[in-house]
């Protein structure tokens, strides 16, 4: 499903030498896998996640998603692909303030070309056990609940891939475990999960672990 071949990405900052965030990285993740990418901060894992998530494009190399080459797509085509195929879960939750859980979950549907969208947000919230909180705003929810709303948002458009970047980074360990259980359930229902983390313990929920150090990646054998 995800085929990344020899992808490199460098960043050039003002008054600083060029930083090579990814150096000839290759990676394959099949449908239905639960994969973790582990690495310390500055290792290039966020860059990798941005590329997998089609939020950024590589300088060189190829990325095929479901057999389709993505490096040639323009930003609007990438947006459409993200909308349909990828659900994001971020460390900072990124919920819209003063906006109810239901409306937050509906956000990807605003940009979707689906014709029938009623009930989808409620369904997604039910999957994370927050159906009865759907009219609460983020300010009225705990951190764990906010992250569940974010997961519901990632699920609402029924994407094949869930991409989670340090999803437990801002949570206490109990809430973190809750969140990871949800990911495990989603995976056992056939969804592809890609987890990006620096935390080996969190990574242990995954079936496969990739380690990224200084822009190069290796798979950790178990």
């Amino acid at each position, binding site marked *: 499903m995800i085929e990344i071949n020899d992808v490199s990405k460098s960043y050039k900052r003002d008054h600083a030498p060029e930083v090579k965030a990814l150096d000839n990285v290759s990676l394959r993740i099949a449908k239905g896998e639960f994969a973790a990418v582990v690495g310390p901060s500055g290792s290039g894992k966020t860059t990798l996640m*941005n590329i997998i998530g089609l939020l950024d494009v590589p300088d060189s190399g190829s990325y095929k998603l479901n057999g389709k080459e993505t490096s040639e797509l323009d930003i609007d085509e990438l947006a*459409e692909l993200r909308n349909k195929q990828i659900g994001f879960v971020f460390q900072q939750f990124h919920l*819209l303030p003063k906006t109810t859980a239901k409306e937050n979950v509906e956000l990807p549907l605003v940009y979707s070309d689906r014709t029938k969208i009623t009930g989808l947000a409620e369904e997604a919230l039910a999957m994370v056990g927050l159906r009865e909180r759907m009219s609460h705003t983020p300010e009225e929810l705990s951190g764990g609940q906010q992250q569940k709303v974010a997961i519901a948002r990632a699920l609402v458009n029924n994407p094949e891939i869930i991409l989670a970047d340090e999803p437990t980074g801002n949570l206490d360990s109990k809430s973190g475990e809750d969140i990871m259980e949800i990911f495990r359930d989603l995976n056992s229902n056939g969804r592809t999960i890609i987890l990006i983390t620096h935390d080996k313990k969190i990574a242990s929920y995954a079936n496969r672990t990739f380690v990224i150090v200084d822009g190069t990646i290796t798979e950790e054998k178990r």
Partner: protein
Amino acid sequence: MITTRMLKSGFKTAWSHKLRATFMIASVMIGIASLTVIISLGKGTQEEVLSRVKKFFSATTINVMSGRVRMQGTHAKMDPTTTLKLSDIEDIAARIKTIVSWDAGQVELDKSASFNGQNAIVSLHGHMPSAEAVWNLVITEGRFFTKAENDGTARVAVIAPDVRKELFGDSGPIGRQIGIEGVPFQVIGTIAPRGPDPHGMSQDDQIIIPLNTMLKRTVNLDYVIAAKFIVTDKHAVNSAAEQITQILRERHRINTDEGDDFTVITPQAVNDMIRRATRVFNLYLPMLSVVFLIIGALIVANLMLLSVSERMKEIGLRKAVGAKSKDIQLQFLIEASSITLFAGSVGFAAGALLLLPITKMIDVPYTISWSVMLFCLAASSFIGIAAGFIPARRAAVLQPVESLR
């Protein structure tokens, strides 16, 4: 489908930042409210003047005044000469075939009239017998004077309502003898109220007597102050006016390098004069409020820009979940224009309310038209789109990775 979802979402976020929305609304509202007040006042004043004047200058009339008439603000300044004779007017009427009827007149202001110990200050008007038809006078009692009475310099008078009231109270005036500057006249008719003339002066303090009687017996003059011609139809007005000018210049022996010693006033000329005189209301003041509107637009643009940098994360998130550049651009445009459109509606309503006491105070009819409302709404949504454009562009080109950080 997608657009309606985006509209809903756009409205929501626009209103979730209440303080910012309030400032934007206030800045546009003030401009629109002032525009509403100014345009409506301008229109009201113009219509008021035009309607007053229309009674005098209907589409088929040509007025000739002696001397040059100059406009000072909304008022005509007259500078009468002694050169406009009744014979001039008679000659014109005889020579121009399209003239169907005419009147000539002389006026003396502040004359005293008396009856049975009652006194009144009146304006004394000498007219031709045709004046009844030419000026659309409505006789309420008695009759207007005849050609024979004019030719024979009869001392007969037709009185306006205020004169009647002051001299006779509730008793009947017809057939009574009144004194005008000590000369006895017989009242033969009364006329209905006519309201103010184009200069805003009352016409209801008039006593109308035959022109011949006035010139020969009362004021001892041989010239008239003005004449009015009615032509067959409005297409005949311009050529008749040209001929009148030619005939008068000829008869007054005016050299080609000299100006007229009379003024020919056509309905078109009157309209033009009024439009020129009310230009300050209808052009310069609206321009001033357009300046307000531009300031309002700059404030909106500024706050929208601020909003873009404040909401980087939101924009990044929206892009991450599938918003295209044009979706983001549209969202900011919808936000800006929904706020300004709302502000425009409120501003229009505020202006319309504010007009009530203002029109009462300066005594102008309250007019508020659909065209003003449509203009205000169009202007305010245009402001939203114009002011939202740059912020929307800036938001649209943000990279999701940059803005999510």
